[in-house]
């Protein structure tokens, strides 16, 4: 018995461990986890590369100093050897020696990664911020190259590091882009553009109504109009609809009370009963009667749909339009309001039968945002690095498109200014790159549907025209 208990405890502990591990793994591979993983991977790479390459950099500084000393020794020898100094001879010899020195320096800079700092300089290319920037340029495939590994071990590690890091970073940036896209959409639709929200809603109502009309009553629009105009109850609903209009407009701006309102239900009841004077309203009545007292939104939506079908003629009829606007706006809260479930009867975004076109941010807004980001970065770098503005814009664009030439890199050693604050500039550059790439992926996320649609339309246009000729 005791053994059974013990075994049971063992099994329970094991399952608990497994569950823990599973949770940890799930968290690691979730959105946040991947981002955190990528960041720590970059830092780990920075540490490793810093350890590997610092020695070579210091050694290279020493080499260049040695070359310079050799050059001067040779020059002295040339000067000393000739008892009589003829200018032409001496100039030739010295010129030749200088040319050799030039070759070694150019080789040091281009091939050995020498950046011009003297042996005594405290700051290194391969400091931690510098190595962090390097790791980032590897796993984002930007690849500047001004700081590049020169040791064999560094090169091998770079290859391995990139093989794992590039997909990881890509995933992280995708997640970040997705998150940024949601934030952007939210702020755009809730903060920036109140007008277009209302406008969009009205136009979508018209669209939906038109679609439903042609779907259900393709040829009978004229008869319904006649019937509508003969009913006496036409005036009443329109009057109440005006009232409703005012009410709903108010409520539309106050997004808190849009979800459920008993008055709205009552008013829509009136509208439905008034439309029931139409002979095709039996279907609506049956739907309405099947409702229970705290009606689920779905059924109300269906009832309103039926009302829309039957009382619709042509969308140019204003009173009917306003009525539809009322019925629709009372039962269709704006799909992007996150205030749901006041008493559990609000439809979610997914229950809303209208297409999600309203949630697409227009392309020009996204483009403006990207351009703004690039300009802000350009200003920042042109001030911080003393570049001219075109250079800074060029840098930002080549960095964010991951081309990454590497001839202009923030935080690199500049002779003219001999600035010492390279470390902070490198860190700023890292942040700018990460956020910039996330912004690029965010914009791709936001506008890809538009681009795909346009593309399809263009390709369809290319093929449609001959087909029309055929038929």
């Amino acid at each position, binding site marked *: 018995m005791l053994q059974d208990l013990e075994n049971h405890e063992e099994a329970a502990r094991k399952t608990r461990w497994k569950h823990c591990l599973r949770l940890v793994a799930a968290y690691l591979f979730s959105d946040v986890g991947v981002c955190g993983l990528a960041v720590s991977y970059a830092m780990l790479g920075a540490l490793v590369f810093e350890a590997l390459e610092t020695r070579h950099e210091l050694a290279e500084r020493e080499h260049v100093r040695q070359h310079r000393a050799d050059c001067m020794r040779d020059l002295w020898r040339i000067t000393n050897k000739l008892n009589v100094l003829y200018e032409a001879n001496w100039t030739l010899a010295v010129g030749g020696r200088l040319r050799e020195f030039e070759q070694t320096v*150019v080789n040091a800079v281009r091939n050995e990664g020498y950046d011009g700092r003297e042996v005594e300089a405290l700051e290194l290319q391969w400091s931690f911020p510098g190595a962090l920037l390097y790791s980032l340029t590897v796993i984002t*495939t930007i690849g500047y190259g001004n700081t590049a590994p020169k040791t064999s071990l560094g090169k091998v590690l770079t290859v391995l590091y990139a093989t794992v890091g590039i997909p990881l970073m890509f995933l992280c940036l995708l997640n970040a882009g997705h998150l940024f896209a949601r934030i952007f959409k939210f702020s755009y639709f809730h903060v920036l553009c109140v007008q277009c929200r209302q406008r969009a809603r009205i136009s979508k109502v018209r669209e939906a109504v038109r679609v439903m009309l042609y779907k259900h009553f393709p040829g009978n629009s004229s008869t319904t109009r006649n019937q509508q105009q003969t009913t006496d109850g036409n005036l009443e609903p329109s009057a109440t609809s005006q009232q409703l209009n005012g009410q709903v407009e108010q409520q539309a701006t106050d997004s808190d009370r849009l979800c459920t309102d008993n008055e709205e239900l009552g008013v829509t009841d009136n509208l439905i009963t008034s439309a029931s004077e139409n002979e095709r309203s039996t279907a609506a009545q049956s739907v309405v009667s099947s409702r229970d007292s705290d009606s689920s939104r779905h059924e109300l939506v269906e009832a309103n749909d039926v009302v829309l079908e039957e009382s619709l003629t042509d969308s140019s009829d204003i009173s009917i339009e306003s009525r539809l606007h009322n019925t629709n706006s009372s039962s269709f809260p704006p799909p992007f309001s996150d205030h749901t479930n006041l008493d559990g009867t609000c439809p979610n975004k997914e229950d809303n039968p209208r297409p999600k076109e309203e949630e697409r941010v227009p392309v020009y807004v996204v483009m403006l945002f990207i351009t703004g980001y690039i300009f802000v970065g350009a200003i920042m770098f042109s001030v911080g690095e003393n570049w001219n503005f075109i250079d800074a814009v060029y840098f930002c664009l080549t960095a964010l498109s991951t081309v990454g030439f590497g001839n202009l890199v923030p935080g690199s050693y500049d002779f003219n200014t001999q600035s010492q604050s390279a470390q902070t500039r490198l860190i700023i550059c890292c942040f700018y790159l990460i956020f910039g790439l996330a912004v690029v992926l965010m914009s791709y996320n936001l506008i890809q549907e538009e681009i795909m649609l346009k593309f399809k339309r263009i390709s369809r246009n290319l093929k449609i025209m001959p087909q029309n000729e055929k038929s």
Partner: protein
Amino acid sequence: MALERKRSTKRSGSRYSGKKRPPVNKCKTCCRKFTAFMFSHVGLCGLVVGYTIMGAFAFRALEAPYEEEKAGEVTDMRQKTVRRLWDITYDLNVLYKDNWTHLVAAEIKRFQSDLIAAVKDGYDGKELGAVQQWSFSGAFLYSLTVITTIGYGNIAPRTNWGKLVTIVYAIVGIPLMLLYLTNIGDILAKSFRYVYGRMCTCKPSDPYRRGRNVENYRVQHVVAHNSPGRQNALEPGVQDKLHVHPEDEVRIEAIPNELHEDLDYQKPRVSVPITLCLVIMVSYISGGAVIFSLWEGWGFLDGSYFCFVTLSTIGFGDLVPGDSVVSDRGSQEKLVICSLYLLIGMALIAMCFNLMQEEVINKVRNCGRRVGIIKDTDDDDDLA
């Protein structure tokens, strides 16, 4: 029945109108098919190459004069330094080593700093009049590195106009390149699958296929349980419970209701094993490494490092063929071959990605399911 009769008359009507003017119609269809084909496959390839050539001409025109200017400047600088050294030497009547060395050291140091600034500005150490960086092949390689986002940087625009044109060129060229790569990857993947499928029919006892068959046997088994005689047995709900991948659905439909252990899966979809794709990529990189290391005198490590960095579009630019400090004969050909290597390599990588992605996604999904991370419905975090 009446409907069918109506349909048949319609068809004959169209056929009748078709007989009236066949040649014009045929011409139009031909033209349309041709334009479609051009825009999709061959045309895209030609478009990319043409775009690169156009870019090469433009950049060469913009940057070559500046390069000459720069090379002249360095020569001037050197001569000025020599003159100043002469002045120092001449001024001192008695040459004390320490004095002289002290004065000369300062001059040399200044020369070095100016030289390094010039190198960072694009000077590559070659003599004036020697083969230039911004030759046609150099500019071609440069344009290619821009639109593939490799971005070596050993050759980079120094003039303002060059930078602006680079920006515009990249904005148009990078999507074009991506389009080209997806297209080419598609075609190559299809043809590779076809060839692989044909080759596989010659060897029916492939262990990998047997492994796959076992998996499908399991799925099949469930199908047989559910549908002894019905054709469209599986409802969508049942399919969800089986965690069926869209490809698996195809396989299920293709299976007749008998149980086979060794079915021919070539028709629905041949999936090339991941190892084969990896082998292809690694061998391409190694092949390039061998070639470039032989030419440039790099070691094999440096060569493979260069190939990997190039094909992953990282593109440091510290090692580039045809770009050594001493001007080489044949550097132009090297640049052209490097460009070709680039183009073909990226197409191959696109093909491998295309071939691998299903397998990788499947494996990751299986792995995740086994560990317990992934539940039945993925992407639970897309809800507002």
